[in-house]
Each structure stands twice: as structure tokens, then as C-alpha cells.
């Protein structure tokens, strides 16, 4: 059976100034304005955000599960790439 719902949009919400937009879920909508409004109504009713992005789900290109080994495992043994050797100043938030 074909999907009779409206097109899917992925929703990203920014919780505070200066931090990245985070994926929170998806909504159905016929156009961008409706997607923004639906995202507002579904995902920000409890003071979750200050900014919303919506992206048509079919425009997102994703890696495939088969790529997991080739893509991500080589970084497992390269701890020196992690910035864990720095001290973070007390005043810095959201890292």
C-alpha cells in the first residue's frame, strides 16, 4: 500500500543560543511554512527551543549500514584525535 500521508520533513530544534540545532523528529506537511508550523506545534510546546529548521526528508543523503565498518572503525584506535588533553575553562558552556 502506498503512503497516503503528506511529505515527510525532518525537524531540528536549537535549544539555546550558540549550540547546534538537534534532530528531534519529523512531521508531515505539504509545504515549508506548514512544516515549520507543525514542527512548532509538535516539538516546541514546552519551551524546548529558540529556533527551528525543517528539511524535506527526501533531500537528506544518509550513509548505509554496510558502510559502518569502513566509515567509522578506523577511528577507534586513534585516541590522539580526541581533544581530551585540553582543560576547558570554567566559563565555557555547551561543549
Amino acid at each position, binding site marked *: 500500500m502506498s503512503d497516503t*500521508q*503528506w511529505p515527510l520533513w525532518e525537524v531540528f530544534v536549537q535549544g539555546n543560543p550558540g549550540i547546534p540545532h538537534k534532530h528531534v523528529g519529523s512531521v*508531515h506537511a505539504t509545504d515549508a511554512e*506548514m512544516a515549520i508550523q*507543525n514542527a512548532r*506545534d509538535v516539538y516546541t510546546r514546552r519551551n524546548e527551543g529558540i529556533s527551528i529548521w525543517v528539511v524535506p526528508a527526501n533531500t537528506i543523503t544518509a550513509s548505509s549500514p554496510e558502510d559502518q565498518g569502513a566509515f567509522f572503525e578506523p577511528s577507534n584506535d586513534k585516541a590522539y584525535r580526541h581533544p581530551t588533553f585540553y582543560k576547558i575553562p570554567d566559563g565555557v558552556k555547551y561543549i
Partner: protein
Amino acid sequence: MDIQQAKFEYLLRLGDSSLIIGHRLSEWCGHGPILEEDIALINIALDFVGNANSLLTYAAQVEGKNRTADDLAYLRNERDYRNLLLTELPNGDYACTLARQFLYDVYTFYLYEALKNSKDDTIAAIAVKSHKEITYHLRHTTEWIYRLGDGTAESHQRLQTAFNDIWMYVPDLFDMDAVDQLLINEGIAVDLDSIKNSWNKRVNEVILEATLLIPTTAIKQKGSREGKHSEHLGFLLAEMQCIARSYPGATW
């Protein structure tokens, strides 16, 4: 009639309209055309009920007869209700609900904008809070008027019919009486003549942009200021007040 009585009456008019349209919208809960729009519409319904709660709480306080907002909402009969006739009209199909909502949103957008300058501090404070909500309501309904009006032949026809059917209730929106006059002189109420042009302009622009025709009608319905309602309000109140009247004083 002194200022206190006039203010009580005025607060009932504002509060009852919010309560009744909020209740009407809540009837869509679980029946919206799509999940997201169902949530959106019920959000809007909740805004109205919240606004009604503020206004009726203040009304009860102004009245000074030991009644609460709940008493006013659940224990008054049809003829004591002062909501605009437009707000009590049945939901019909989604086009009817949106046409009704759009006309009311444009109305409250300008009304509450003006009420922010009310010399009554409580009314002004409620207006500031509500106007932010209303700004969103209007944005939401306006988009739907464009979508349905300029959508398919069927959505276009349904929306046109919806506007045609409710157009006779427009005069009731701008009706004024001695209550208004007294409070306008005190700087508390809004002179509805002063927002009428803005309402006409915005409504006409959106209707035309949505490729619809501005309705005309020779029938002019009024009466909400005196509690004269359509046949629909009694049924709505029967449902809305049923629990509170069946179990007086019940709490949870």
C-alpha cells in the same frame, strides 16, 4: 450602570468568546485531518481556554459576588452568555472551521493589539500575553485560507461556501452599546469602529489572494451583546457544562 458593572459585562464578552471558540475547536480533538494539524488546532484551542480563564477570573473578581471563573463558565445559561455569535457556530467541515477561525483571528488580532493600551492594567496585561498567541493563530489560519482557497476545485468551493454562510454574522463582531461607550470614554475598552477598517482590509486581502470572492449578504445578524444567540449555543453549553452540573463541586 456604573463602571464596575460595565467592566464585568465587557470582560464576559471577551472571556465568553474565547471560551466558546476554544470549546468549539476542542471538538476537533482526535478528529483533525492529519495528526500534526490536529495538534496545532488543539494548541490554539488551549490558548483560548487559557485566555478565557484569565478574563473570567478577572470578571469574577470585578463582580465581587464570590463567584469563580468556573462558576461563570459552567453555571450560567445561554442568555447569560455574551460570546460573539460567530464563535458558537458549528464546526462543519474543515473549511467552515477555518473560515470562522480566520475571521475571528483577524478580529482578535486588532482588538487585542488595541487592548494592550487599555487603562485597566489587568486587561492590558492579558492583552499583551494573548496578542502573541493570536499572532500565531492568525498566521496559521491565513496559510490555510490560501491553501484551501487556491487549492483544488473542491477545497475552493467548500471554503467559498463556508465564508458565504457565516458572512451574516460579521455585523455582530462590531456591534457596540452603552457598555462599550462608557468604557471607551474611560479608556478601558476598544472602540470597535477604530479596528473595523483594518479588519476589512486584512480579510479582503487574504480572501482575494486565496482566489475567493468577498461574500455579500443582506442578512445582518446581531444580538450577542444582549445574550441573544443562535440555536447552536444551547447544545454546546449542554455538553460543556454537563459534568460540572451533574456533579456539583466535584474536583479531581
